């Protein structure tokens, strides 16, 4: 007979840490966003009592999000970047995951290793690598000039949306392939053979069997990388450095450099969090509904 508090007591230090350094800070964001600004030093003054919360800042921020106003273009642009990058990641990642899961036999171990290596290489190092390649005198420009595609070095790093999207795809696609691979790997091979056996050509089997069965996995993997992509600012800073391509993360970052704007920054953070929470909820709802139907979650 173990005392009832034996095991929970182990969890206590960790739980306490998370409460103090995760929950409370989250609340602090709310307190700041709905707080005021000290008129003298222009510092944000948090308001801890929800009853005293001030909503003017949030209102004006939301106002600026309307079409035509300052934040609108940033949000639209971010959504566009994320959507395009996601599409790119899926286009590249799905075939790779599929090959790894269903075909690669002898080279499977090696391929998995190669797949995992980028996880252990710092994101910034991978960006550093691309900056080196995209410099005016970098290998990409030199190769293109050699091939005659361009006559002069192209400014890849001068605030180009395409470069940012390329970098986002490069940075996030490994995080997509792994969960996709896990899902595809779990599909029982006999099910696919059954499809062929019953008269479906390879393409038909893919469309009618493989794709439906991997639907949940695609959704899960997409959410997995879309979430951090929305908060990304450093990719843009490193690859573009121009406000022309700034994303939501950059906006938030901007407001935290200087003192007086932190209330605005906090408000933006809340809006971002709410957006992502909605995304997550949608994902969870779809998953729960799907598993209720099949009673067999493939996640």
């Amino acid at each position, binding site marked *: 007979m173990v005392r009832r508090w034996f095991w929970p007591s182990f969890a206590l230090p960790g739980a306490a840490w998370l409460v103090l350094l995760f929950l409370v800070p989250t609340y602090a964001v709310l307190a700041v966003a709905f707080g005021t600004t000290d008129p003298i030093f222009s510092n944000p003054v948090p308001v801890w009592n929800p009853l005293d919360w001030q909503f003017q800042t949030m209102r004006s921020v939301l106002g600026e999000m309307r079409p035509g106003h300052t934040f609108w273009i940033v949000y639209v642009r971010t959504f566009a970047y994320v959507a395009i990058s996601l599409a790119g990641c899926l286009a590249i990642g799905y075939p790779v995951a599929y090959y790894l899961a269903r075909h690669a036999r002898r080279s499977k171990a090696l391929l998995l290793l190669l797949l995992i290596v980028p996880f252990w290489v710092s994101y910034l190092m991978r960006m550093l690598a691309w900056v080196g390649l995209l410099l005016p005198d970098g290998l990409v420009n030199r190769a293109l000039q050699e091939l005659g595609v361009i006559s002069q070095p192209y400014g890849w790093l001068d605030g180009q949306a395409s470069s940012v999207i390329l970098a986002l795809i490069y940075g996030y696609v490994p995080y997509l392939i792994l969960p996709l691979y896990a899902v595809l790997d779990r599909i*029982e091979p*006999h*099910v696919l*053979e*059954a*499809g*062929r*056996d*019953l*008269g*479906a*050509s*390879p393409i*038909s*089997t893919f469309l*009618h*069997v493989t794709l*439906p*069965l991997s639907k949940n996995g695609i959704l899960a993997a997409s959410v997995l990388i879309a979430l951090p992509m929305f908060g990304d600012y450093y990719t843009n800073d490193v690859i573009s450095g121009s406000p022309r391509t700034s994303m939501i993360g950059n906006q938030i970052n901007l407001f935290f450099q200087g003192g007086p704007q932190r209330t605005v920054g906090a408000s933006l953070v809340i809006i971002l969090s709410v957006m992502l929470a909605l995304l997550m909820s949608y994902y969870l709802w779809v998953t729960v509904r799907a598993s209720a*139907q*099949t*009673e*067999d979650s*493939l996640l």
Partner: protein
Amino acid sequence: MSKKTDGAIELVELRKEFGEVAAVDGIDLGIRAGEFFSLLGPSGCGKTTTLRLIAGFERPTAGKILLDGVDMAAVAPHRRKVNTVFQSYALFPHLDVFGNVAFGLRRQHVKREEVRRRVEAVLEAVQLGGYEKRKPAQLSGGQQQRVALARALVLEPSVLLLDEPLGALDAKLRKALQLELKGIQERFGITFVYVTHDQEEALTMSDRIAVMSGGRVEQVAAPAEMYEEPQTVFVADFLGVSNLMHVTAEGADAGACRARLGDFVLRAGNGDAAVSGSTRIVIRPERVRIEPYESMGDNRVPGMIERVVYLGSAEQLVVRLATGDVVQALFVNDGTPREFVQGTPVQVHLPVDALRVLPPPAAAVPEPEAKPLEPASDAAVQLGAG
């Protein structure tokens, strides 16, 4: 569905290698149209590979696969008029029962009305009428198996391949489904190629059986012939319980083979009488006669009762012969009072017409696995210590 008349398969020198290993080592097999044909053997004998070759999931290294005279070896699986019932059923988890069964029909772009008609008809035939909307995960094992069967049957194939479909079911359900499968096969006249490692199942259901081992066919025969007249040690040992004994054969002697078992001379009335040299004789337990110790005559060896096992419908006796061999005898419980006591000396009579001599093995044949109900037989003791 009208009764089928086609569906004959012929395998000609069929060979499949995986790297260095030949899973199917050159087999020739003829399966008649409308036959219930079983491929029987232990795991690793190549029966599943052979099935997959016929289905088209593996490409043969050499040889031909003829369906009604046409070589299918180069035809992709989705174009063969052959359908498979998988061991794990392989039902599509994202489709309901109707969707699963209709899958093949839809790939053929059959009209919706006809799809519905045929699907409902076949579901009735497997006694799953009304289950159309259920998902596979909501079905029991037996029900899933029937959906898998229906899914294949609805396409009216000439040949149906079944890969140990009843393996995952409990004994009682298995027996019931065996009868159902046999009934369906006879009703529609489809050629069934049935893979199993369960010899009882094969004996019960098949018109003919091919026993396989190590990628080769050991023997092809109807169940009765296979059981009564095994041609090799492997077949004799694999099917049912057999009493195998090492002997030195000495050639023919008035129509039977003369065999020396230790100090005793026996005559084996079955098998090739001209066999000589080191080989084995075999006799089925139900043919062994236990007589009082004083009994005299040919083919009798003294022994002692080691163990008496009461099986309910029968009684099993384990007797150790004077030569050291252990023999099992089986007495069906027909009401005859019998009093067997452990430790009694007896005379074991191996009737000439029940004793078979087997050809000496060409190469070392792997010992088949020990079967559950073999208390102290030779094979079990050897394997248990390994």
